[in-house]
């Protein structure tokens, strides 16, 4: 119900919204929870396990009960805390975890089964009969699991990520945080002040108190205005600092557009990574309840929250309320309510000797609340007198306070546990738990406003001073300074279930049972009962649960200890953390100068390369591929090979470096010549292969495969800096600087001579020659190398001429009966020639395995040489490169298939090898493959059995030499 004259909502600005299909009215400034409360709604959710009716319990992000789904369709947002959701016109929200409705939830029957569903029940059930698990238990559990549900559809919501740097990060903008920011800001430090709420003020927004002779809220506004005017202070509301990480790094979630109907192009959320030299944690404190029988009835809430609802939003949960606590602070709720004209039926204090601080309200010191009645909404409470007798009282709302827990979570994110303070019966942060972080205000156990202001100012000042800023500190206004007085009360003894974790439905009994079953460690109790494992991460239950556990195991609270605190402080959508990495933005796209989007392109790492270049009338990729192979082998083909790594090396000592990184010798290579090289890892396995060309005495060009370009570059830098720093050389990657095209086929020289400024011949440009040439006046590089096995060249021009040269090459090729060819055809031709790619040098093959053992020069050291000589790596029993030819008509030889002796059972123990590459060879008119076979080179001619267990294919194959087309290489020369 609404309370006249209270709250800072705008009663001139009503808003309509829907909850579970019903229309409601609230006001500008309301949250969904306060607006529902104002409209008399008590039932806001159903608990996870037992589906017990629940109402709102708190007024903040720690809310365990009132979880709703807002928006609809692909924008559906589950598990939104109604206490955090700001109201806007047209807001639509639905309760969760109930069927068919919140009021009538059939799954409430779970509550009847409670005796069987206690702590750890799932470790003891669902095991028999075994068959029932997959068919019955698991599907049923899956349906029941979770709270809210995702829409299951892709969303068009925008999420962003951002980075910020500052001198001092102040976490929390209540009295302590505002003073810390002011202090550090006045000293000249660069400050960022974050608060999870929509406005600064923290607890002051909820209290009817004065700061410096004016209402607290006025002081807040003045201070914020002051901070706003300072250029060196950045203010961020709706921003939760979610985690503390190494080196002063913090994660923070800014909820940019949850409070409006239409984001209008703004992101819904922004996840920040903030690097701060110093930080001040002013996160305040969270009230903890007292557990008693059925303390989870809708209408039972935190006493401090009841005060927030009254003072900030002008609402009360019901007409007749009571307050129950073990401390002085609870009295303020009764006092504020009474002063606002709300009927306070009772102020109940467990301490017999505590004076009444609430004024003229019925006062019951030394009493306890032992039970709450009213399944769908509180109707009455049961009280126990000091003499043990009990009586009932009719109320519809109960505020409960068991004391306050400092919000120290962030200070424990780097694996330091908090320390226990007996005097306030609470854990507080340990000093220096996070390097560079100070804690101030209620977050370190100082509960009066005056203490908060002072400690915040001091911490901000010290943080600034650490960084060399001179600070005198702002003036401290007067503020309330009441002592914090309480007497411990965790749970009220009695029968029935007393609730601790409201989200996971864990009771005092469950914790006691865990202890009885010897799950005595707090970490074990947590997992066994699931207390503290729900989205609220036990914010209102951790303290009580560990106190109950301590009692049950006969230990003190410090000895029992807390569980580990981990980020995030409140839930963060994965979409927010992954902002900017969805769809194509996940990785850069690299395009060649000849890139054509209309072609079917494949991904080669981050590059895109055409798979085939279909001609009009071609219906399948095989048609195009077969045609392209025949075209290259009979006329001429053009293929963009720019993606292969290129490294420019210069200096007199380059040959020495190459001799060390390649297995074979390069130092002796003459200028104008290119050579194929093999590169090993230090463990003796093949890293990469490629050609290296010596353009001049001191000018070389190394190529690598597309896939290993980065690795090779890194390797060269490593070798040079670690082992050869004194060599006179320099090198750099030029992969993107040169566009390079293969010109392959019998008519390749004819094509080139029509293009080059100076013609070439077989004498001036024999096989493996390289040099600088000129095309239309542009300096280019020509290499007579061949991957296809044809008479072929690669021509390279500066990248800006790439598109133009490619177009020219293709049109001239077409005149000669050829054209462009793609990756499929390239692959077929190299398989026909037994040329390896990373399909064969996949990281677990050696030079010996691929038949290149003799390429490791005897007379020099090279990377990988020593390890490659290990007996196990040159054993003839190893799987070595072979060609494979199906002998059965129509036989397939898919990659990944395994090889077995012809008569052997195709099981793992009989495995003889595997297929790495396969194709239909138009040149030979049949399927051909490459693979690895134990003792392969000695088994040419043998028929083995090929089995693809996954696809259910079995073929007999003849083992052949890997090179099956033009084995003498005659086509290469001439």
């Amino acid at each position, binding site marked *: 119900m609404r309370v006249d004259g209270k709250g800072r909502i705008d009663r001139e600005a009503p808003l309509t919204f829907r909850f579970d299909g019903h229309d409601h009215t609230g006001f500008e400034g309301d949250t969904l929870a306060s607006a529902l409360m104002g409209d008399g709604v008590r039932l806001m959710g159903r608990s996870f396990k037992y589906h017990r009716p629940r109402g709102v319990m708190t007024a903040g992000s720690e809310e365990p009960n009132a979880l709703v789904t807002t928006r609809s369709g692909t924008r559906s947002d589950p598990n939104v805390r109604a206490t955090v959701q700001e109201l806007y016109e047209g807001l639509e929200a639905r309760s969760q975890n109930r069927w068919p409705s919140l009021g009538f939830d059939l799954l409430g029957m779970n509550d009847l089964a409670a005796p069987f569903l206690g702590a750890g029940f799932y470790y003891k059930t669902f095991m028999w009969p075994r068959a029932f698990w997959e068919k019955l238990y698991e599907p049923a559990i899956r349906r029941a699991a979770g709270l809210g549900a995702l829409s299951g559809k892709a969303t068009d919501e925008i999420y962003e990520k951002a980075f910020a740097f500052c001198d001092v990060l102040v976490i929390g903008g209540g009295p302590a945080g505002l003073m810390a920011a002011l202090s550090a800001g006045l000293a000249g430090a660069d400050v960022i002040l974050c608060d999870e709420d929509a406005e600064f003020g923290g607890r002051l927004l909820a209290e009817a108190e004065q700061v410096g002779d004016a209402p607290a809220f006025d002081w807040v506004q003045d201070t914020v205005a002051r901070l706003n005017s300072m250029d060196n202070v950045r203010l961020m509301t709706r921003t939760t600092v979610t985690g503390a*990480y*190494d*080196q002063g*790094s913090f994660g923070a979630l800014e909820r940019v557009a949850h409070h409006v109907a239409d984001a209008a192009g703004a992101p819904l959320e922004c996840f920040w990574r903030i*690097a701060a030299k110093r930080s001040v944690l002013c996160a305040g404190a969270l009230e903890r309840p007292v557990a008693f029988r059925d303390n989870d009835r809708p209408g039972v809430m935190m006493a401090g929250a009841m005060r927030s609802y009254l003072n900030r939003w002008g609402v009360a949960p019901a007409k007749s309320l009571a307050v129950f606590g073990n401390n002085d602070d609870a009295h303020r709720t009764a006092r504020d309510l009474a002063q606002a004209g709300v009927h306070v039926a009772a102020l109940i204090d467990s301490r017999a000797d505590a004076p009444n601080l609430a004024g003229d309200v019925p006062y019951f010191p030394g009493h306890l609340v032992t039970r709450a009645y009213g399944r769908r909404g509180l109707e009455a409470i049961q009280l126990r007198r000091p003499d043990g007798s009990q009586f009932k009282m009719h109320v519809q709302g109960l505020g409960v306070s068991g004391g306050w827990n400092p919000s120290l979570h962030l200070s424990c994110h*780097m694996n330091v546990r908090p320390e226990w303070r007996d005097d306030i019966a609470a854990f507080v942060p340990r000093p220096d738990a996070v*390097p560079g972080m100070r804690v101030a205000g209620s977050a370190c156990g100082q509960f009066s406003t005056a203490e908060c202001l002072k400690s915040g100012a001091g911490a901000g000042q010290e943080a600034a001073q650490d960084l060399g800023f001179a600070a005198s500190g702002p003036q401290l206004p007067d503020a309330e300074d009441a002592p914090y007085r309480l007497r411990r009360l965790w749970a009220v003894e009695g029968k029935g279930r007393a609730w601790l974790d409201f989200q996971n439905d864990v009771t005092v009994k469950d914790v006691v049972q865990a202890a009885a079953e010897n799950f005595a460690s707090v970490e074990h109790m947590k997992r066994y009962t699931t207390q503290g494992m729900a989205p609220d991460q036990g914010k209102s239950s951790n303290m009580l649960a560990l106190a109950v556990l301590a009692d049950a195991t006969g230990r003190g609270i410090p000895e029992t200890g807390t569980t580990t605190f981990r980020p995030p402080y409140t839930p963060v959508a994965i979409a927010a953390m992954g902002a900017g990495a969805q769809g194509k933005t996940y990785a850069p796209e690299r395009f060649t100068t000849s890139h054509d989007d209309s072609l079917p392109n494949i991904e080669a790492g981050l590059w895109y390369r055409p798979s085939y270049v279909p001609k009009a009338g071609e219906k399948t990729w095989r048609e195009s591929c077969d045609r392209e192979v025949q075209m290259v082998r009979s006329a001429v083909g053009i293929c963009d090979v720019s993606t292969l790594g290129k490294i420019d090396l210069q200096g007199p000592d380059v040959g020495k470096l190459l001799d060390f990184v390649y297995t074979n010798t390069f130092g002796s290579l003459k200028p104008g010549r290119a050579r194929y090289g093999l590169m090993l890892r*230090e*463990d003796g396995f093949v890293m990469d292969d490629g050609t290296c060309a010596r353009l001049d005495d001191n000018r070389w060009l190394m190529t690598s495969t597309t896939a290993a370009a*980065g690795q090779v*570059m*890194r390797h060269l*830098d*490593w070798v040079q*800096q*670690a*082992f050869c*720093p004194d060599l006179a050389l320099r090198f750099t990657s030029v992969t993107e600087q040169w566009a390079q095209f293969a010109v392959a086929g019998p008519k390749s020289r004819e094509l080139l001579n029509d293009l080059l400024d100076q013609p070439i011949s077989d004498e001036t440009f024999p096989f493996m020659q390289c040099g600088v040439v000129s095309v239309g006046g542009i300096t280019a590089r020509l290499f007579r190398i061949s991957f296809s096995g044809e008479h072929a060249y690669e021509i390279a021009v500066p990248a800006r001429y790439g598109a133009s040269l490619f177009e020219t090459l293709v049109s001239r090729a077409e005149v000669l009966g050829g054209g462009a060819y793609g990756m499929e055809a390239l692959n077929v031709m190299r398989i026909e020639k037994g040329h390896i790619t990373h399909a064969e040098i996949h990281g677990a093959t050696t030079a010996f395995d691929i038949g290149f053992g003799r390429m490791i020069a005897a007379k020099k*050291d090279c990377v990988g*040489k*020593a*390890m490659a000589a*290990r007996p196990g790596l040159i054993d003839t029993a190893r799987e070595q490169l072979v060609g494979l030819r199906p002998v059965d008509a129509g036989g397939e030889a898919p990659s990944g298939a395994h090889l077995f002796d012809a008569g052997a059972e195709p099981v793992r123990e009989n495995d003889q090898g595997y297929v790495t590459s396969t194709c239909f060879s138009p040149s030979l008119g049949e399927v051909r493959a490459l693979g690895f076979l134990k003792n392969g080179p000695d088994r040419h001619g043998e028929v083995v059995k090929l089995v693809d267990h996954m696809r259910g294919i079995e073929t007999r194959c003849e083992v052949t030499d890997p090179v099956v087309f033009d084995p003498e290489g005659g086509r290469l020369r001439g």
Partner: protein
Amino acid sequence: MRLTCPLCGERDSREFYYQGAASMLNRPPADAAGQEWHSYMHLRDNPAGEVRDLWYHQDGCGSWLVVSRNTVTHHISSVDLIGAQNAG
């Protein structure tokens, strides 16, 4: 996490490639015994405390660096070019 490259200054750790122990700098001679190579390639200390690791400034200057870092506190005490020191 940030690393201070001696040439480029403080950079996000995502600019770097992590290789492994700085002991990789002590490459045995080609003819060293198998045990020595085995130790070089495969055996590593695993202290709870200071470790010296190799990082490569892949998206920056391409320098290989030795980073001294405490595995318990995560404190980075030094970042040097590999030429500037031995592996130790």
